[in-house]
């Protein structure tokens, strides 16, 4: 049963050694709870953060692994392309060899044709010299032979020119095919070199991914450890909370008051609808006035701490108020004489 008190009694109680001891216990219990709550929150935050970092590391490792696969695919693509170019180059080398053989053949033929042409030129010259020495029917036969030789020379010259053109054509094609072979070889070499680099990159990136997976695993374990520590701290916090409740409950029994989380309440003597609330916290924001620890407030039963009034012993006497009014209105302001012209 709560005991009704006057304000002076409440203030006496607050000043008593018993209350001071209780207040000390409450402060210790609150401080312990506050510290444990902070530690618990910190550990839980760290555990959550570590979980998140583990997930992030895992995701990055997976992405890295994909990247390694991309490098491997690129290397395989380059290998296939390089092989195809190699095969293409074999065919082109075959074409070149064939053209080279044909050009050599034509070259020999051209040499033979040239020799034949020279011989026929000499024969025509001899036939002409012989013809000039002859008369009559012998001359006519010589003319006919000469004409024959001229005809044969023209044929030989035409054959020579054709061979010459054929040789030039074959030679040009041969050079072009060789250029193509060299281009394919260069491209194939480039592919091979790039492929080797891609393979090495794939290896390197795979190693990075493996490191990432290891890091993710390590972080998961750290998060588990932190979570276990947080749970242990949570149990300690729960005990501290129970201790705080015990201390507050003790106040109800020891001081015959009602208890809240932030106030103690004492029934006010001769005022059944009112009570005294003693602040247990400092709070300048929540209530209608600033609440200070161990300050005493008036509250009514209906509104409670939603409307606090500072509790004061006694209002000043009427006489004191009167004296101030006299001083203000009758004795002039601040001891100065009233100026004559002032309104």
């Amino acid at each position: 049963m709560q005991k009704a008190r006057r304000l002076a009694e409440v203030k006496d109680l607050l000043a008593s050694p018993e209350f001071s001891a209780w207040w000390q216990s409450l402060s210790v219990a609150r401080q312990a709870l506050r510290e444990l709550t902070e530690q618990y929150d910190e550990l839980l935050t760290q555990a959550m953060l570590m979980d998140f970092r583990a997930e992030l590391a895992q995701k990055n490792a997976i992405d890295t692994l994909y990247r390694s696969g991309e490098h491997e695919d690129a290397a395989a693509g380059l290998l296939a392309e390089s092989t195809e170019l190699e095969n293409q180059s074999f065919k082109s080398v075959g074409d070149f060899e064939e053209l080279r053989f044909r050009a050599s053949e034509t070259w020999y033929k051209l040499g033979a044709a040239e020799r034949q042409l020279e011989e026929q030129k000499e024969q025509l010259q001899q036939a002409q010299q012989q013809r000039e020495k002859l008369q009559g029917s012998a001359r006519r036969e010589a003319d006919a032979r000469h004409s024959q030789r001229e005809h044969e020379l023209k044929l030989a010259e035409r054959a020579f020119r054709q061979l010459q053109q054929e040789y030039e054509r074959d030679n040009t094609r041969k050079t072009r095919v060789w250029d193509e072979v060299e281009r394919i070889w260069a491209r194939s070499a480039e592919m091979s070199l790039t492929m080797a680099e891609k393979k090495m990159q794939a290896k390197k990136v795979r190693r990075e991914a493996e490191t990432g997976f290891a890091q993710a695993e390590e972080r998961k374990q750290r998060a588990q450890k932190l979570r276990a520590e947080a749970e242990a701290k949570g149990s300690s916090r729960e005990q501290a909370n129970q201790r705080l409740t015990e201390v507050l409950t003790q106040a109800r029994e020891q001081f015959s008051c009602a208890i809240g989380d932030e106030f103690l309440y004492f029934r006010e003597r001769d005022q059944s609808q009112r009570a005294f609330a003693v602040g247990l916290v400092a709070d300048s924001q929540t209530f209608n006035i600033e609440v200070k620890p161990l300050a005493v407030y008036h509250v009514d039963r209906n509104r409670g701490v939603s409307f606090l009034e500072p509790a004061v012993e006694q209002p000043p006497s009427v006489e004191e108020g009167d004296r101030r009014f006299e001083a203000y209105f009758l004795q002039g302001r601040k001891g100065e004489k009233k100026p004559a012209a002032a309104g």
Partner: protein
Amino acid sequence: MQKLEVLSRSPLFEMLSTPELEFVADLSRPRRYAAGEIVFEEGELGDSLYVIVEGEVEVLRKNDSGELKVLTGLAAPAFFGEMSLIDKEYRSASVRAKTEAVLLHLTAENLALFRKQYRDGFTFLVINIARVLSSRLREANTRLASRL
């Protein structure tokens, strides 16, 4: 922060006794403002006044083209916001923290509590507000007279 010391220096609480000042100190709530932060704006409904504890504030008002113009600056232990508290009109100007500032906030409800507990003290508080308003009116009259 020693509220009592601040309040005892303020012209708003001149002539109040120590218990009255202590009571007002208990009623007032400290408010902290960053530089540039608005305390209240012109046109708002106001039922409270502020006493400057630390820092400076500036009183601003919109001109015809809507631009904010600084009317004056105030520093501790000046007070402001009393006009709307008395005439129950909308705020006649905006107030903005010029520097980081700490203010004590007193609402009409707080003053009603003060009146309930200390009637004479409350009367002096109203007299002090009237004195300040009277002083401003005199100043305005002087300025007006110099332009006539």
